[in-house]
Each structure stands twice: as C-alpha cells, then as structure tokens.
C-alpha cells in the first residue's frame, strides 16, 4: 500500500523555488531517509507531504487520499524541528505530552481507561515510564525525543515523520534512538526521516530521497551509495557530513 505519493510537486516561497517537480512514493513499511544540503527544501517537502503546506502545482496523496481531504490525523506521528528545542517554559508533564497522541482519537469525548492504557504502553515501549511525571522541558534532548515518539505511538500512527530529530542529542542517546526507530520500523511503522548525518541514513534507511530543490535520487539505499547523486546534489561546496563509527 502507498503511504505517500507525490506527483510533479512544485512549491515556491514567493519567487524562490523550494521544491521543483518532485515525484516520489513511500510504501508501507518503508524507512525513507530524506537528505540534502542546508536550505535544499527537505523540511518544505516533508511539510508538503503532511499537508502543512499546499503545493503550487502537482498532486499529493496520503494513504490514497488527496492530502487536502485527508482527515485521519491520528495515523501520522510528527516530530517537528522545533520539538527538539523543547516546549519553552510551559509546564507540561511527559504523560500529558504523550496523552496528546490520543486527542485526535478522542475528539471532544473524555479520555477512557483504554486511552490511558495505550499511553502507558507507549511510555513503556520507548522506556520513559519513570519520567512520566517530569516536565518535558526538564528532559535531556534524547529523553525528549523519546517522549515525542511515545506521543506518536500513543496515536497508533502508521506513519512517523521526523525532522532532524537528533540535533543537540549526545552520540550515545542518538544511537539508542535510531535503534528504537529501526525496531518500530520492523514492527511495520513507515518512517520518513530528515537527517543531516548521511551515515545514519545509509545505515538505517532502506530508501533514500536526495533532494536539492529537485530530486537527485530516489530509490533503495544500495543504489544511492553507488550513484553520485550525493555529490551532484551537494555540489562543489561539499558540505557533506559523514558518520564515523
């Protein structure tokens, strides 16, 4: 089943094109790494896929529906770039934040014991049960990422979209975090990951989309590593971040 399908998608901020003629497909169970240099339109492309922005031309489908008509919000878990920097000074506990994953299910009804049980399971799965009563803004970067993933799990999302989730997270927590993503992917959750560290992407993702306004590569990881899409997309400036083990 196709989770996301883009057809000739173009988007510009005023006169400045950010995404041009991109056609790509994400299938159920994929782990798509979305890479490209700074300002290459990765985040814009992800926002287009999720319906946060409307394309100037082209079509986008989410779970087989036009993205503008899609309303099963609980099927998508989203960890935005801002999420990494933390919820400011707002006192919200980890449990409250994870419970938000149930809100799209509940609508205006009260949360039930089932909802709370699902939240407990999500906390358990990512291993932050003992932090449930702590405030999100008191957590370390790595713990905070887990809280956001737990929120996506609580919404029982089929698609997990993450925008550079490990900025400011120490190396050890980062490895553990990517292991968690891999195991969620093994359980059948489709993942779209924006990541500046290309090594991480080639290690974990089974599909790669390399973009710099236009799409330079879209296919499996092996063919990406063998191609020169990377140098083409990043150009002569060569700001490539390599991952060292």
């Amino acid at each position, binding site marked *: 089943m196709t989770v996301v399908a883009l057809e000739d998608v173009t988007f510009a901020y005023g006169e400045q094109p950010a995404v041009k003629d991109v056609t790509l497909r994400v299938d159920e169970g994929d782990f798509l790494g979305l890479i490209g240099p700074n300002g290459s339109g990765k985040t814009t492309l992800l926002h287009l896929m999720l319906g946060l922005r409307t394309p100037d031309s082209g079509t986008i489908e989410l779970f087989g529906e036009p993205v503008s008509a899609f*309303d099963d919000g609980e099927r998508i878990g989203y960890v935005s770039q*801002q999420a990494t920097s933390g919820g400011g000074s707002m006192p919200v506990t980890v449990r409250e934040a994870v419970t*938000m994953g149930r809100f799209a299910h509940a609508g205006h009804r009260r949360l039930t014991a089932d909802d709370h049980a699902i939240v407990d399971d999500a906390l358990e799965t990512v291993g932050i049960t003992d932090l449930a009563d702590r405030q999100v803004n008191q957590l370390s970067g790595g713990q905070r990422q887990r809280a956001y993933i737990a929120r996506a799990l609580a919404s029982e999302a089929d698609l997990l979209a993450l925008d550079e989730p490990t900025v400011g997270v120490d190396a050890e927590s980062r490895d553990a975090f990517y292991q968690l993503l891999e195991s969620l992917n093994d359980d059948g959750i489709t993942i779209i990951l924006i990541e500046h560290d290309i090594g991480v992407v080639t290690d974990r993702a089974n599909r790669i989309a390399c973009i710099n306004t236009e799409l330079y590569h879209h296919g499996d990881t092996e063919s990406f590593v063998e191609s020169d899409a990377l140098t083409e997309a990043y150009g002569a400036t060569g700001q490539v971040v390599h991952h060292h083990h």
Partner: protein
Amino acid sequence: MTATGSLRRRLEHVGIAVTAVLAIAMIGLLTIDAFRSVPGIGVLYEQARIAGWWADHYLGTSVFYHPFMWRSIATGILIGVVAPLVGTYLVHREMALIGETLAHTAFAGVAVGLLVSSITGWNGSLMVVALVVGVLGALAVQWLAERTDTYGDVPIAIMLTGSFAVGTLIISYGRGMTGINVQDFIFGSISVVTPSGARLMAVITVVVVAVTVATYKQLLFITFDEQAARVARLNVTWYNTLLIVMTAVVVVGAMQILGVILVAAMLVVPVAAGTQLAQSFRETIYLSILFGQVAVIGGFVLSISQSLPTGGSIVVVAIACYLLAVFASSRSSPAISMH
C-alpha cells in the same frame, strides 16, 4: 508520588472546589438580583440582604448589605476565574500582549457604546457594544496574525494604539452627550459595574468555562505543539480564533473593574505565578485560578479598607503573589529552569 506531593494536590483540589462553589454562589446572587421582582425570588433577595446586613454587622463593614457591592464583588470573583483560565493558554502561546491589545480595542468599543447609548438612550447597550467591538477587534488581530504569519509585535502594536486612538476620537466627538466618566473605564472602578454589566460577566463566565472545558484537549495540544496539532488534523485556525475571541470576551467583562490599562495583568500575572510552581499543565490552570482569586479578594480588601482604586489594588496583590511564587520556587525546586 511523595506524601507532600499528594497533600499539595489535595489542597489544590479543595481550593478549586471552594472557588467553584464561590463562583456558582456569585452567579446565583446575580441571578437573584436580576429576577428580584419575581415573587418567589424576591424573598430570596430580601434574605440575601439580611445576610449581608449581618455580615456587615459582624465585620464592622458597610459592604455586603448593598446590592451594588454584591455585583462588584461577584464580577471580581468571576474575573478571577475566567481571566487566569484563558490567560494560561495565552501566556504559554506567548500571546500575553494580545490581552492588552484587545483591552484597547474594547475601549474603542466602550466609546462606540457610549455614543450608541447616548443616541438611543438604551443604557444596557454600553457593554454589549463593547463586547461586539471587542470580538470584531479579536477577529481583526487574528486576521492580521495570519496574514503576517505571526502574532508579532508590529501588527499588535498597530492594533493596540490604533484602536485606542479611534476610541479617543469617538469620545471627543461624543463629549457632553453622556454622563459616564470614561476615566472609570481606563483605570477601572467598582462603581463602573452596572447591573447589566455584572449579568454579562455571569453569562461570559458560564460560556467561557463551558467552552474551555469542552476544548481543553484541543487548546492544550495547539498551545504545546501547534505543528503537530495541525498534522493531527486539528483545525488550528478555528481553535486559535476561538481562543482569541474568548480572550476578547473576558477582557470586556474584566475591564469594568480593572480598567483598560490594567486588564491584561489578570490574564498574565496569576498565570506567571502558577507557572512558577506547577508541575503539569492542569496544575498550572488550577494554581493560576487560585492566584487569581487571592488577587481579586485581596485586592478588594485592600481597596475597600484603604479607599484605594480597585484595579490597581488587585494587580498589586497579584504581583505580590507572583514574587512569592518566584521566591518559593527558587527555594524548593532549583531543578526548575525558566528559559
């Protein structure tokens, strides 16, 4: 959970329950006052006045016997519930100055209301017109914010000063047509609270509390992580509009006692105090409302006993609460960091 933690939680729940009972009693009192010409309710009205007389007798005051004081106190108590309630969302959306802006819009509304009531001779129209203009101002702020993609300072500053400017023009134009002192609306006063203004506050309270309870989840999600809420297909624009309109409504109600200049304090200061001490968002709301009550009741006591302006007294007590909360939080939990 620690023993002190659960004791604290129980105290908060008791405080909120007492506040709820107090607020319902105040709404009841205003209802009795409004319908006192109905035979059965007339008896209740007489009983309430007798109770007020006894209260004055024992306290050595001259406050509770007078129905106009009931209205002012009731309005104050209700402001102490709804302003921090709505303010909790505003403060954590970093929209604190929106309240101040909407107060100035409402001032333009009062000016229009004065003009309308002097022309039509209908006295009840003042607050209603202020409410309508306040809500229109709120929608304009929301419209501007969406066009400029932010609740930034510039559109806010334009809106704030612009509506005040329009208000002064209208008042100057209508000068001499009305007997109402505009100063009372700028600085706030107990004597401003008219019977219809107090009743309006009761209706505002019921509606705002009901709407906030019904949309608690959605407002919380949007406040905490707007983009994720959008992805979860919450109608963010609709809830933003709802929040800003509720703010306008609360500001118009609260302006009667606090005045245009000080009304934003009630949306912000109790919340700032609550945030210092709260561990969760729910607790923030509870503590903010409790600090709101302390500020209003403390402010009334200070104002009546020392013959000081009510609005200023309430705000000063609120800020004293805030300073105490800062002091308490820096002593008890050094782990909490305010970014």
